[in-house]
């Protein structure tokens, strides 16, 4: 039986009187790929931020490989071997593609090994022609791809991606899909996403969020055909 790599128990996050994440119980097995979907304000990103340490939950616990990481700082969680990509491209704009990826690789490797790994990931993501270009000069899709490179170069066992396909061209999305599939050979992957076409192309199991809580969790085809989910997305009663 596959090991549980990520688990939340009763995860709740309140902002004043607003409960953004409400008693969420979540479980993810090793090398599983899970998409988190839901309309705007459903609590997906709040859940994501609680898991990555960007927010400290008001109640409940987060476990990674059985270890309670509730309230840990983002760098402590990342140091466990967790790769994180935030909603908007979060990169070092004034540094080159190579320098960005080298910095990610250096965290877990010595200088020479970091350079070799950076070169390798640049090849794998076809970033060679822009390797010496500053991130600030790149198009959105290229920046997203570089950020995925930052995640992949550290060989994580758990990858958390917030809207990786947002604002990307069809070609870039296809390339992104392939990269994510490659990642699942060694890592469990959680993707927060809106793009249903992209979700169909990558996911098997989907967790639907609604009003901060988990509404449904099932195979992507069942979720897509579910009347309640459709109503939540379209804002109509089931």
């Amino acid at each position, binding site marked *: 039986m596959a090991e549980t790599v990520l688990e939340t128990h009763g995860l709740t996050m309140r902002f004043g009187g607003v409960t953004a994440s409400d008693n969420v119980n979540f479980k993810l097995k090793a090398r599983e790929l899970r998409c988190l979907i839901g309309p705007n304000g459903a609590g997906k990103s709040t859940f994501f931020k609680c898991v990555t340490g960007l927010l400290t939950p008001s109640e409940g616990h987060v476990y990674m490989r059985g270890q309670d990481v509730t309230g840990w700082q983002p*760098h402590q969680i990342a140091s466990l071997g967790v790769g994180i990509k*935030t909603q908007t491209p*979060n*990169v*070092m*704009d004034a*540094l080159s593609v190579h320098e960005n990826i080298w910095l990610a690789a*250096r965290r877990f490797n010595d200088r020479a090994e970091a350079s070799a790994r950076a070169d390798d990931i640049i090849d794998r993501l076809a970033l060679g022609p822009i390797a010496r270009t500053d991130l600030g000069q790149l198009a959105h899709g290229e920046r997203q791809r570089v950020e995925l490179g930052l995640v992949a170069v550290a060989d994580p066992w758990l990858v958390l991606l917030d809207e990786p396909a947002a604002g990307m061209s069809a070609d870039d999305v296809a390339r992104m899909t392939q990269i994510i599939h490659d990642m699942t050979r060694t890592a469990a992957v959680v993707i927060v996403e809106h793009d249903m076409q992209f979700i169909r192309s990558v996911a098997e199991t989907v967790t639907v969020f609604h009003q901060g809580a988990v509404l449904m969790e099932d195979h992507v085809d069942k979720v897509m055909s579910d009347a309640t989910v459709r109503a939540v997305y379209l804002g109509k009663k089931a």
Partner: protein
Amino acid sequence: MRGTGGRDVLITLVVAALLIWIMPTMIATYTLTVLVIYGMLGLSLGLIWGFGGILCFGQAAFFGLGAYTYAIAAINIGESTVPMILAVLVPALFAAILGAIMFYGRLMDVYLGVITLVVTLILFKFVNTTAGPQYVIGKARIGGYNGIPGFQTLNVPGDPGAYIWGDPFYYVCAVALVIVFLLVTWLLRSSFGRIAVGIRENEVRMALLGYDVAARKTVLFTIGAAIAGLSGALFANWSEIVTPSLFSLSQSAEIIIWCIVGGLGTRLGPILGAAGLAYLKFMLGQQSMIDNTLITGLILVLFVLFLPRGLVPAVATLWGRIVVGTRRRTQPRTMRRTRHG
């Protein structure tokens, strides 16, 4: 990379040796000495602000702490070697504690500036109120607004009677600046330096890569304070008196202006900015027609409007354009077409 580093060290040493040798023929060594000391102080802020993104409004606090530590220790010990070491260690320790409180407390941007400024002003106020005889550390009276005069100045290590003053003191300060410059260069080329630049660019991303941003910023802040402390000790030796004005608001503001005018994100910019503006202030101080703070303010405004990146980056950009233009002119037409086609 290692070959390039060796070549850069050699170039730095040759250029520095030439400057150290030539400059006394143009400016008196007494004046040059303080320009060199200010250059080191500018570099201390240039390191943490330009490469670490830490806008410290209180670099004068570490400068003043270095100077006072030296003076107090020199009076008590009667020899300069240990006081020089303490003048580096005390500001560094103070910065480590202050930095840890600020960075682990997740203070950023303007709040960081406010805290460092307030700490400097507290030190200024405190030292000003220590005129009474009860404010004594060992044999040294802190002296309040009168400051501390008459302490042992720099001597050959182990020989308190062999003073280093005049031209030899200028050479000691100049060599110290070259050593600090090379150490800063080495630091910035190390993994620590590259990670510091990454933190300057995007703290959140660096934390998400697994770097302990607060710890690294604290270390960088401490290194900057140690350099400022060293420059403070050298300043105490140059002026032979330390006063609370070392902690003043104007002193803090001047260091920031030196960095802006010289060029942030460069090693040379803050040194040149400090030396250039301090020399200008010295020249203006010899006349009474115009208030020199007005001129300094005008220069800052002009730089912010027309050269916002500072002098050194502007010269580097201009130099780059000249080099590219020269290469294009010397390239055969066919090559140019191939390159652009």
